[in-house]
């Protein structure tokens, strides 16, 4: 469904992505693991049109989208939960969620989805009129995921949702990601440093080093792979 073909992305003269190819099928959970600075976040930003690739193709259902503006890409159903959550700090929880549904005009449906994400994360209901910036890290992550869901994504891109969170919260968030994938058949592309958890959740995985994809395999095989175990699992 989402095919990334040989993309090259640059920051000025520095090449961040070198010939990256990733293939994501409908309904899958695919993870991209790698060290700091490997180019994982850049991959997501390239897909979303924030740092468009200088060469290569990104295809959604066979249509090239690499030259579309970010808002057109959101409209096509590719929605990102960026690293660091990026909650609008001076907007309330409800306003943040409404921003997620910015491109949707069907008000009753949006309201329905608002209620849905609040059943998914009941804490958001309690905090509904609190400013986003005053939430705890875990609550912000839940809000960030919910905000993305408000766009009714076909492909949900998640950038390190476990970053800086307590193990119990991480577990809860990964459970919800699984649930989102199962319940609404949302395709998930998960970027993680927490390789162990990510591979346990995912169907397939990609390993990235210095802007290149170095390994592709099923998640189970990657978990068993000696190199991966040494480099990313610390075993």
């Amino acid at each position, binding site marked *: 469904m989402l095919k990334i073909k040989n993309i090259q992305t640059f920051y000025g003269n520095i090449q961040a992505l070198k010939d990256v190819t990733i293939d994501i099928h409908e309904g899958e959970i695919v993870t991209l693991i790698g060290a700091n600075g490997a180019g994982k976040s850049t991959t997501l930003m390239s897909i979303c*049109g924030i740092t468009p690739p200088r060469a290569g193709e990104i295809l959604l259902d066979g249509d090239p989208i690499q030259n579309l503006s970010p808002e057109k890409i959101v409209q096509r159903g590719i*929605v990102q939960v960026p690293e660091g959550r990026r909650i609008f700090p001076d*907007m309330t929880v409800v*306003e943040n969620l409404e*921003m*997620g549904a*910015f*491109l949707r005009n069907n008000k009753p449906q949006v309201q329905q989805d608002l209620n849905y994400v609040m059943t998914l994360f009941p804490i958001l209901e309690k905090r509904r009129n609190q400013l986003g910036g005053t939430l705890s890290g875990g609550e912000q992550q839940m809000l960030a995921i919910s905000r993305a869901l408000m*766009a009714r994504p076909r492909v949900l891109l998640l950038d390190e949702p476990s970053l800086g969170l307590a193990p119990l919260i991480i577990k809860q968030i990964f459970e919800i990601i699984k649930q989102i994938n199962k319940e609404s058949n949302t395709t998930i592309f998960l970027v993680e440093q927490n390789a162990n958890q990510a591979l346990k959740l995912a169907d397939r995985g990609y390993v990235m080093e210095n802007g290149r994809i170095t390994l592709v395999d099923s998640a189970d095989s990657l978990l068993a792979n000696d190199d991966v175990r040494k480099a990313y699992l610390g075993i």
Partner: protein
Amino acid sequence: MDYFIELFLGGLTRGSIYALIALGYTMVYGIIQLINFAHGEIYMIGAFVALIVAGVCTIYGFTGVSVLIIAAVAAVIYASAYGYTLEKIAYRPLRGAPRLSPLISAIGMSIFLQNYVLLAQTPDFLPFPSLIPDFEFMEPVAHIIGSPELVILITTFVTMILLTLLIKKTKVGKAMRATQQDMNMARLVGVNVDRVISLTFVIGSALAAIGGVLVASYIGQVNFYIGFLAGVKAFTAAVLGGIGSIPGAVLGGLVLGWTESFAAGYISSDYEDVFAFGLLVLILILRPAGLLGKSRKQKV
């Protein structure tokens, strides 16, 4: 006591005009961290358009408040178009450039627009008709506040309420706030950030034009240089209140207006600027981000 009230209302009138212009500075700064030095020139162009349109209206036999309204609407439309174009040609190509480049571009546009009006019109002061009539019902209080002041106060007050509603309640307002708080994240939820920036310039310019028409009509003359002086004062108000903060711009405008009015009334009008800028220095020492400004934490 009457004298105090007179000074208080005079300061309020002056301050609300500063606030109206300061909003344009602060809204643009909030979104793209640019001091739009050409903003004062938009105010001046608004006043000139009103002058021309008022003249044409008078020739065609319009009288009274209708001239003011037609002239103001024309000024708002014209100035908005200028603001939109200004952003498009002078700032948008420099998006992503180091912050000094658009700043210099802004100064360049300011000089350009001043000289363009200088050439198109004249370096002399032109008389501006007093478009605001003297209302009869104002006569009993005329020694404290005149009709023009009343119109200025009501107009700025209504404009600010409308602006607040726009920003708080409407979808475009939310898009503006989102863009101000995190531009790339706003993009990621589907906000067309370019459009939001254009809109911010259009709104700021419209407010400046309203200010320009009201002040020109009140003072009774215009020339190509009035935008610079008004711009400096309004910019001071924006910084005083905390640049980037909308309530801050309003508060900063009022504080500045009152300071000037009381300093002129109780001490000497020669010193009103000394007090205005002295206050600015004092506040910036005590609160470097301005009265309502937040010192932004930079995340790396």
